């Protein structure tokens, strides 16, 4: 559902946008989203949903070594039971010790699909449809305000839908930096250096294109789709110009190289702090799809939570933790039992982790049963309720939007939003 054109706002607001280093906008109710995907399917029994002592579920305890501290145990952090292992996943312990009081775990999310693409689109867009935008894009679009972009995506998983005009697909090899900082290591072209016109000339060209677009408006008449295309063209020129004029804090990224997750995370924090965007998405970059060796999950969780600690520490240091909600999702979890190859396969349920940004920490919402199937809950509170409803991907997406200040009914009509994040 595309929003009306913002052209009437852009001229004044973008020109007034300050992206000076170190400037932080007032937090207030302007929540931002930093979404991290653990693409491939994490095994929730390694942290979020301890399932020790069950024949029906084979968790990390199956892989115990002789090391004295290689012990799976349930430890409670701010009231949240979390599975920890000081030997294999010490970073999980460290994270929840520091930030458990600001974190919420949501278990028992019903995904209802079994393949990566189907699950990913459901978890990110809240729908089974690939041509709907994901929640990060929706929130960015609705709440873009004076920012040059509403949402940015470094993950490569995002769904723009019809909202591409406020969305930035940034690339995984510093492409965004190459485009915005024209002098930054632009790859050579066949022996010829690409002609880089002076900025003033390109600005003149941009102006000319805008005028040409207005002339084309007259030619296409009142055709609504054509007018929207022209709106998006002109708005994109404006936003691109704002990106170039003011720059983005992308200097941590090297053009041509894939950034490490921590570097990327810090870049996203820079972007959010400088109000370059309202939402940002990245991938954890670990191989979670462990069909052949389930115990890779140990390392993945340890690395993930090490990165999360770094990022949340940084958010806190910069005074952003009240404003920025970190949401860590995976499109699925893994089967209760180990397969013949020593790995685990796909399971149509999952969990999510939320930190900061107004989330009521120190609580676990939802749960699964002894077969790792989602239990019903009260969607208003997140409490397990046998007479309640399944927390489906659309309820969760609607709940995320509401929490960020977007009217979810507009995007998910008739879907009950999950309200367990703020109660």
């Amino acid at each position, binding site marked *: 559902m595309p929003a009306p054109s913002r052209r009437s706002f852009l001229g004044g607001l973008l020109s007034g946008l300050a992206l000076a280093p170190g400037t932080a906008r007032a937090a207030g109710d302007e929540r931002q989203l930093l979404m991290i995907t653990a693409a491939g399917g994490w095994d929730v029994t390694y942290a979020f949903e301890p399932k020790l002592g069950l024949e029906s579920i084979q968790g990390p305890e199956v892989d115990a070594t002789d090391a004295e501290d290689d012990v799976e145990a349930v430890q409670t952090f701010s009231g949240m039971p979390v599975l920890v292992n000081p030997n294999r996943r010490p970073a999980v312990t460290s994270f929840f010790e520091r930030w458990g009081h600001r974190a919420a775990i949501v278990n028992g999310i019903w995904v209802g699909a079994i*393949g990566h693409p189907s699950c990913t689109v459901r978890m990110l867009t809240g729908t089974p449809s690939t041509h709907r935008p994901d929640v990060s894009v929706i929130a960015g679009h609705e709440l873009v305000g004076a920012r040059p972009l509403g949402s940015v995506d470094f993950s*490569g998983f995002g769904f*723009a839908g019809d909202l591409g*005009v406020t969305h930035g697909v*940034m690339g995984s090899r510093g492409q*965004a930096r190459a485009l915005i900082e024209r002098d930054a290591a632009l790859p050579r072209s066949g022996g010829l250096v*690409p002609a880089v016109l002076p900025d003033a000339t390109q600005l003149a060209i941009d102006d000319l294109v805008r005028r040409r677009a207005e002339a084309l408006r007259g030619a296409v008449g009142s055709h609504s789709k054509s007018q929207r295309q022209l709106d998006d063209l002109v708005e*994109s020129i404006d936003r691109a110009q704002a990106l170039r004029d003011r720059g983005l804090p992308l200097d941590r990224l090297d053009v041509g190289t894939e950034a490490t997750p921590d570097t990327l995370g810090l870049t996203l924090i820079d972007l959010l702090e400088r109000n370059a965007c309202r939402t940002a998405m990245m991938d954890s970059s670990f191989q979670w799809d462990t069909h052949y060796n389930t115990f890779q999950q140990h390392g993945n969780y340890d690395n993930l939570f090490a990165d999360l600690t770094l990022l949340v520490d940084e958010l806190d240091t910069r005074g952003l933790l009240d404003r920025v909600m970190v949401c860590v999702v995976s499109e699925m979890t893994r089967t209760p039992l180990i397969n013949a190859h020593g790995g685990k*396969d796909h399971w149509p349920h999952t969990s999510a982790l939320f930190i900061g940004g107004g989330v009521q920490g120190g609580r676990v919402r939802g749960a699964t*049963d002894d077969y790792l199937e989602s239990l019903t809950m009260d969607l208003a509170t997140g409490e397990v309720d046998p007479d309640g409803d399944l927390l489906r991907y659309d309820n969760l997406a609607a709940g995320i939007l509401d929490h960020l200040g977007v009217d979810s009914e507009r995007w998910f009509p008739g879907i009950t939003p999950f309200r367990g994040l703020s109660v």
Partner: protein
Amino acid sequence: MAAPTHRLPRGPVWAMVSLFATMSCGTPGPDEVPSPEASHDDLPVVDQLVRASVALRGLRPSPDDVARVSADPASLTAIIEGYVEEEAFAETLADMHAQQLMLRADTVPKLRLPQVGPMKGFPMGASQPAEQEWPLQLVRHVARNDLPYTEVVTADYTFSNEIIATAYGLPFDPVGPMEPGGWQKVAWHDGRPGAGLLSETSVWRRHVSNGANFNRLRADVIADRLLCDPIGGRDVSIEGSIAVSDPEEVADAVSNQPECVACHQALDPLGGFFWGFKPQIAKASITIAYDSDCGERPVPGWQYSGDVADYCYPLKTYNPEWEGDWADWGLRPPNYYGEPATYLDDLGVLVADDPRFATCTVRRFYSWFAQVHVDDVPFEVVEPLTEAFVDGGWSTRDLALAIVSLPSFRRADEDGLGLLATRPEQYARTVTELTGYRWLGEVDDGECKLCWGEVDLARSALHGYRTVAGSTDDDNILVPTHTTTPMKWLTVTVFAQGAAGHAVAEAREGRLSWLDPSISDDDDARAQIADLFLRVLSAEVDPDAPEVDELLDLFRTAASSDGSDGGSEAAAGWTAVLTALLLDPRMMLH
């Protein structure tokens, strides 16, 4: 007698009401019964030509075509019919299939072919595109020769080039007959049945069968992408007490649990046709194989199907002796939605005979040309197009022509599609054809384990700007963005500047006849600008027109600034003018 008070309309309007009432009560599409009161204004004939040209070829019409259709609008049909006979139409269909089958997935690391053994000489920037384009050669071949589209699932041949022959062992005669691009039509060499795309190694390297998946994902690719039956997208409810990690329990469940049977009754037998393919050939398996001297030394924990030697070049990707191995797992024998069959070529015939294949093909084609999601193609459009497609011998040319000839493509009013965004692939092809410029980049930095060499940055999703500009990456981003975005604008700006600079440089060397970069006189400049309007934008403008004034101003402004290529002021001006034209709304939209 009182005047009748008609509560319901009569006559022709009534007929229209009745007809409207017969349709689904969503917004009637433009290609359904026309609204009785809407305007039927068509786009100007040149705009129709541009739209058809970009849709069919990814290229703008030539000045000659523009002149011809302007002089004789009735020639539009003949010109457009000529477009589908060109190689560029074959490229368009290749782009479509690449996206719909998710083949140009250069962001997927495990698909890369390690540069070991005989593959050491091939940079990744050559080997990866070769592997991605390999199955698309069949699509190009079908389009180029106007073969029935069913050939894409029944062809008993494939194509080869030097890289594919080295990597996969297919025959290749460097001096034998070639198709465009250096590809050669050859027979399969390893006993696999020939069934067009269904037999293609690259397709099944892209879509793997992990663990106990038993080719279900591959079956779903067939169902979803060729039949528009996305089995994998259906809701899944798994009874918790079923040990899904135990293949025997799964085999039992998919045969006996109603919730499982609903999908697996069709999915599993469809997967039964693919057992001859190796489940996957990932980069790591090849590296491990070479580390063991192709099996000369033992490989502890070897977890891949088949012998270690199979994973050394040339890779052995199909084992005919495995075709019946579904039986070892208690699975259903191969069948096609209840119709029993045995081999892959049987499957191809069954797909070709399935009416869903025809309707899905029409939906996919319409989806591509009209830039709508395949789920949103109206039934009322699909059925008549399908009937004509099948009755007409499955010609992709005829189908494409029928689609671009629909009223929705021609109309300027609200019943028309409206302005369409030029896809990054179309933009790149247009710019290259106009200027000769290719946006290449050297992406390796010093010592490289997997060396890419030169990469086409317009086509690459990993290193380049294809996805940043709004196209798919065929890995996770599966739906393109059909509008302009800020990142797309930044991308095309760089591309346009590079192309303009290249064209001016070539012109200064005498290698581009249609541009004289030394022109600085106003009258000559106006004439050249008008010519550029025609050449780039297919627009016939008077040299004294206001739009020419604007570009002349830009020329003067840019010429008086520092030139980008070493000091020629006029050249700088023409670089700016050409950049502006390459960024014109009529280039970005069509």
